[in-house]
């Protein structure tokens, strides 16, 4: 089943990163195994003597995936806006994964810088995918400046801890029903991605959990299944939780009862 995000129609609900793989070959195989149709990339300084950027870009181009340039490493709205503009020129896309980091230890997004940059970038015609915390008020303000996509963290980047605050994520889903919500960062297990989808999220963005697995290609496939399972569960409607046990086999007709 297809879905729409940022003006594009996708089948997969798993967005994937391009960093930390043991090799470019494994990266390509893992991306393919994930079924992802969107890959995020960063932008870094390049000296003319090295052409590492060119080699990497050739590999990514050959995947044929939609490119989601990110502003990873930016610490101010000004930096992020400049990087987004540069990404738009290089990749010929108005998509940007907006990251404005506020704390270097947690790599926690700066809510104020993120909001400032999001507003400016939307005014400039970007489709902003903001990496943000799970704070409801921040997310509402991002929506108010025009964001139709939000990417709250599950846990700090690269920790693999899973969804640390399911209540907050559930609240976002309930309060922002028309916004595309993706959990970005912090997942380590396929079950974490499945849980995000079970909460009603529209997708997940992953990198470390796949790239740092012992077998990244196999893990990419596992995440793909988990995302599908979680999405199917949410669409199916889960049974209500109960405190007391309730037998599933009929009581009527039970033999040997007195």
């Amino acid at each position, binding site marked *: 089943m297809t879905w729409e995000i940022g003006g594009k129609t996708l089948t997969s609900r798993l967005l994937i*990163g*391009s*960093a*930390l*793989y043991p090799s470019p070959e494994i*990266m390509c195989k893992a991306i393919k195994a994930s079924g992802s149709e969107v890959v*995020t*990339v*960063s*932008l*870094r*300084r*390049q*000296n*003319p003597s090295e*052409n*590492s*950027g*060119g080699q*990497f*870009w050739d590999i*990514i181009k050959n995947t044929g995936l939609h490119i989601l*340039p*990110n502003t*990873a490493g930016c610490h101010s709205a*000004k*930096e992020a806006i*400049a*990087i987004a*503009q*540069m*990404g738009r*020129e*290089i*990749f010929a896309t108005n998509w940007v994964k907006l990251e404005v980091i506020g704390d270097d230890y947690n790599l926690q997004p700066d809510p104020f810088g993120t909001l400032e940059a999001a507003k400016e970038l939307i005014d400039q015609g970007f489709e902003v995918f903001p990496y943000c915390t799970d704070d409801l008020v921040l997310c509402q303000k991002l929506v108010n400046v025009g964001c139709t996509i939000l990417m709250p963290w599950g846990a700090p*980047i690269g920790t693999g801890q899973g969804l640390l605050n399911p209540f907050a994520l559930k609240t976002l889903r309930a309060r922002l029903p028309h916004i595309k919500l993706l959990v970005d960062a912090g997942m380590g297990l396929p079950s974490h991605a499945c849980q995000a989808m079970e909460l009603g999220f529209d997708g997940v963005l992953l*990198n*470390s959990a796949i*790239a740092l697995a012992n077998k990244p290609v196999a893990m990419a496939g596992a995440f793909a299944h988990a995302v599908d399972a979680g999405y199917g569960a949410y669409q199916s409607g889960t049974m209500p939780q109960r405190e007391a046990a309730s037998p599933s086999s009929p009581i009527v007709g039970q033999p040997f009862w007195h």
Partner: protein
Amino acid sequence: MIALFLNGQPKKVAIGSSLAQAIAVWEYTESNFAVAVNQQFVPRSHYHKTVLNDGDHIDVIAPMQGG
């Protein structure tokens, strides 16, 4: 000559050099890069009319792995 910075490294170019001239001197031959001067993005179409000044900080960036 004027002194400026390319990706944080000191460089010198002729007085009155345009960004296009500097990029050529520095031998950026690929097309997959973008440029900012003093943290302001400069579109490729503006390279010729962007004159560099003493102390400018020029960043040339290209695609890289990211998550």
